């Protein structure tokens, strides 16, 4: 669970780095070429399978553990907890469901379209014009709001998940845990800020 989580955390950074090319570079071909490379390179293709495995492992493990956790308390308390805990940690499965719904829509909109759909080709052979597809999608305000909202929920998931993963792996002490907690907030700000900036910048361009 924690290892798969940390793997997905690193994946998000890679994904963000490539996506930012859409708004950071005037020439859409830079992003298109990067996307082409990610879609065709042999090593990346193997990692794609590993990535799907990571998602699957994280989701299946989460479902098993969550069901066990619910079964561990068949009768719930009448009074809501007032224990001093972070709300993010208490709502992990709920933020997860929102992120999962987003993931399904996101894959249908971009990933499967790029793989199997008909995305217009650019002047370069074999390179599809994904930049235009993204820019077109984010002209719709509803779509922009949906993306921004989803990433805020992903942020809630990450802010607990990032530091919790290290604790589960046995790393929790006075020296490292405060550093990890700061890192988890920084990472969340970068990921949520970066991913939400893309639709917002495209919409207002």
């Amino acid at each position: 669970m924690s290892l798969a989580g940390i793997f997905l955390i690193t994946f998000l950074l890679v994904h963000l780095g490539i996506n930012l090319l859409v708004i950071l570079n005037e020439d859409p071909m830079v992003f298109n070429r990067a996307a082409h490379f990610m879609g065709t390179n042999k090593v990346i293709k193997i990692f794609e399978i590993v990535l799907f495995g990571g998602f699957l492992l994280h989701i299946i493990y989460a479902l098993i553990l969550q069901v066990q956790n619910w079964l561990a308390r068949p009768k719930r308390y009448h009074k809501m907890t007032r224990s001093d805990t972070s709300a993010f940690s208490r709502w992990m499965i709920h933020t997860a469901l929102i992120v999962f719904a987003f993931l399904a829509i996101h894959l249908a909109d971009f990933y499967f379209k790029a793989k199997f759909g008909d995305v217009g080709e650019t002047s370069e052979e074999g390179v599809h014009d994904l930049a235009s597809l993204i820019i077109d999608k984010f002209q719709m305000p509803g779509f922009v709001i949906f993306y921004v909202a989803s990433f805020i929920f992903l942020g809630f998931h990450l802010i607990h998940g990032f530091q919790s993963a290290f604790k589960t792996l046995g790393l929790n002490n006075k020296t490292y845990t405060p550093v990890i907690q700061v890192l988890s907030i920084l990472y969340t700000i970068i990921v949520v800020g970066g991913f939400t900036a893309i639709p917002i910048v495209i919409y207002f361009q």
Partner: protein
Amino acid sequence: MDLKLKIWRQKNASERGRFVNYKISNISPDSSFLEMLDVLNEELISFGEEPVVFDHDCREGICGTCGMYINGRPHGPDELITACQLHMRKFRDGETIVIEPWRARAFPVIKDLMVDRSAFDELMQDSGYVSVNTGNAPDANTIPVQKEQADLSMDAATCIGCGACVAACKNASAMLFVSAKVSHLALLPQGRVEAKKRAALMVAKMDALGFGNCTNTGACEAECPKGIKLTNIARLNREYYKASIF
């Protein structure tokens, strides 16, 4: 003080329980929470009703027998204490206090606020001990133990097994309890030998008893009357990984 009490009443393990509302007056703010319940029970007995059953023993905060879920928190609205050390001055005059038993599949209700915590005993009986021969009591200072290790071990050993960690945990997990037991033995030479094996066995037993899993929410640490730290859980995990990998 005048108070409204909303208390879980349940005749026995098999019967469905329900909340019953009581009014109680003239409670001294200096009385303890359990003394307040004693006053209520005296009144109930004088009316010929069944008193509210709750666990209690030393009333000094050291035995771990008392324990109830008071207004959304195990052991009530105060830090680092058990329910018997909770005082009525922590409540407002006229306040409604909701009192529930610990809720966990592994801790079935016996009657009213009393739950069966023998799952903790079963855990200890299963593997929470030292089984290697450690010989006679050694002379003082013949086995050097670092002060830090000894302190951490003693901190973990202060666990009184009250079950507040399980009650507070949103997953009804016993990880803080198990980690305290594993830690206090693993940090000292006699317990060190079997540390890995003990961690693996206790985790397996904990799962078999129907406790949930740890999600590092930290409610256990926040509610533990003895201030057992989450870092113990990380130590338990380290021992567990060592047992499964090596």
